């Protein structure tokens, strides 16, 4: 069946992309002048004066999964096999396995990204739909202006402003951390409350900077749908306004935005590098930023690969599920007459 073919094709594509990114990451690691390999070697020989070159090379291999003296194709093979066994190397700065650090940080970044993505699209889609229904009204013009302004402001500027006003100046929200460490982790109210309290500012920053663009594209899509003949036919057929708004305008206007929602997952993970550094929020992005400053290349590489995998996965899921929500893209297994 054609759908299965499409599935296989798309899966292979996703893996190829992943392999390309691995290869590029590896090449960077290996070929950067004064790159991580040389840096690791230099640091180890500096701190351990009495180590032999061979011992240093072994240490480097332990940290980065790559032995400096091996030829590039062998080294690539070693690197890939250790990645596939889940060995991302060892962090120099934290002296922990990279995979452990990232696995602990990941849920927090996913939490912030998911909630802000949900908030951005809920507010954006609702506002956009209301603006479209009242096209040309004062509400529409006012909201459009606000949406354009907030869209033009980068999220990190919003983040710094929020932190400055609500964090440092008024002290309403914490200026760092992801949870109050004195509370026992678990599914209790105090812990969840603390998580939300600490996550409020980073999430707000993303939502405030993000909803405008979504509202504007929803508005545009809806206005286009509202002008369609099938809406007039639907009204004459006596369908309720509610059904028309949801099943006719809503669904057809949101569909083109679906793919961009999925791609936004990837960009959110990328954006978390700056966001989590501003809010000192120890998620994936925070560690990537720290490793950048500390020249902790194994950790940096691991974080980079995590972000890549998240992006590829997001687009992969979007591609595979689009056919389920839009019958027109349902692959070619359906018969047309």
């Amino acid at each position, binding site marked *: 069946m054609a759908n299965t073919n499409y599935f296989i094709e798309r899966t292979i594509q996703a893996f190829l992309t992943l392999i390309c990114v691995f290869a590029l990451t590896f090449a960077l690691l290996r070929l950067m002048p004064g790159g991580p390999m040389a840096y690791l070697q230099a640091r180890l020989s500096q701190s351990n004066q009495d180590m032999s070159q061979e011992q240093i090379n072994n240490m480097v291999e332990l940290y980065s999964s790559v032995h400096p003296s091996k030829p590039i194709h062998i080294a690539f093979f070693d690197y890939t096999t250790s990645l596939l066994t889940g060995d991302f190397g060892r962090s120099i700065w934290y002296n922990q396995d990279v995979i452990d650090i990232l696995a602990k940080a990941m849920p927090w970044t996913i939490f912030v990204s998911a909630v802000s993505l949900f908030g951005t699209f809920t507010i954006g889609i609702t506002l956009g739909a209301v603006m479209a229904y009242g096209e040309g009204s004062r509400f529409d013009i006012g909201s459009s202006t606000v949406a354009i302004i907030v869209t033009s402001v980068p999220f990190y500027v919003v983040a710094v402003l929020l932190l400055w006003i609500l964090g440092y100046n008024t002290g309403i929200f914490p200026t760092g951390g992801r949870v109050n460490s004195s509370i026992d982790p678990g599914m209790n109210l105090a812990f969840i409350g603390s998580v939300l309290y600490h996550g409020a500012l980073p999430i707000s920053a993303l939502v405030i900077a993000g909803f405008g663009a979504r509202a504007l594209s929803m508005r545009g899509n809806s206005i286009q749908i509202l002008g*369609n*003949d*099938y809406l*007039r*036919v*639907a009204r*004459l*057929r*006596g*369908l*309720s306004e509610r*059904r028309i708004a949801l*099943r*006719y305008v809503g*669904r*057809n206007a949101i*569909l083109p935005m679906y793919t961009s929602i999925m791609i936004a997952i990837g960009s959110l993970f990328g954006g978390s590098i700056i966001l989590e550094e501003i809010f000192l929020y120890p998620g994936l992005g925070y560690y990537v930023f720290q490793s950048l400053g500390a020249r902790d290349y194994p950790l940096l590489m691991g974080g980079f690969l995590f972000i890549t995998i998240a992006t590829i996965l997001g687009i992969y899921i979007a591609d595979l599920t689009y056919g389920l929500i*839009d*019958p*027109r893209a349902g692959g070619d297994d*359906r*018969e*047309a*007459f």
Partner: protein
Amino acid sequence: MNAVDHSTTDLNSSTDTILEIRNASVTFDMDRGQSRVLDNVNMDIEREEILGVVGESGSGKSMFASALLDAVVDPGVLTGEITYYPERGQPIDLLDLSPKELKKVRWEEISMVFQGAMSSWNPTLSIKGHFEETLDAHNANFSEGMDRARELLADLYMDPERVLNSYPHELSGGMKQRALIALSMVLEPQVLVMDEPTAALDLLMQRSILKLLREVQEKYEVAMVFITHDLPLVAELAERIAVMYAFEFVEVSTIDDIIRNAAHPYTRALLNATPNLDVHVDEMRPIEGSSPDPVHTPEGCSYHPRCPLADDECVSEDPGYHAVTAGHDVACFHWEQSREAIPYTLPFQDDSTEANQ
């Protein structure tokens, strides 16, 4: 089928009228003045008849169609009286109804097929979904309704299950149009208004849809109003023709009378302008001038700027209707002279005689 039986002796008297339109006007307020796109129109539609409405682009045909369902789009304002006579019960004036009552009349009593079948379907909803939500919105019996939908689709020569389970993009233009006719008939309306239902289709599909419409009309005993710019096309289907010019009807008659004995200079000119394989291209005459502006419709007879018979009377006074024969009305002072002044050769002679036997 005898067309004359259905005709009325006069516009204002009725035999078995189902829809009575009196002084219907549609106006739009524009920056440069009031635009009147339907101008005091009167018409009686008989039970189970097929009325063809013919006119050029921008003559108010679509407005007339929308008015029959009180569905003129905002900011257009419809005034006048549109009275629907149900088989049993009191006559209903459409313009007096509350939105809820109007919702019930539309599609259950008076239904409509739109110009663009291609864009009349929600692209992300299956054909079945469209039927179901329509039945649902009118609280109709679900299984009976779906059975009727299947029967209608079968009557229109389609495989009901295949069509119902399809999405609009999976159907060809002709199938979409036929499915739309089935959708408009699913609540068993008494009147079916069709606004250029064959406009986007090829000639063969146009002909086959006409044939199907005639069959459907006979089986379901529905009155049809078929609106088109294509006079030869509607001549094959309709029993009575109303010619529209400048937002009002200029001539109403049976199909035979219109084709053999057109009285209005505009109708005659329109017949002359109809492309026809039998007539040499030099004998085809376009109508000089252009159609009037809805903001400044000419005083008197609206056709006078383009009419070869126009005189001072036409410029200053509205002609009103003159009866040529019983059931043949024309809005022209000089209809008696038009025959000599504007000769025309009969287009589609064979077709029309055959169609009306």
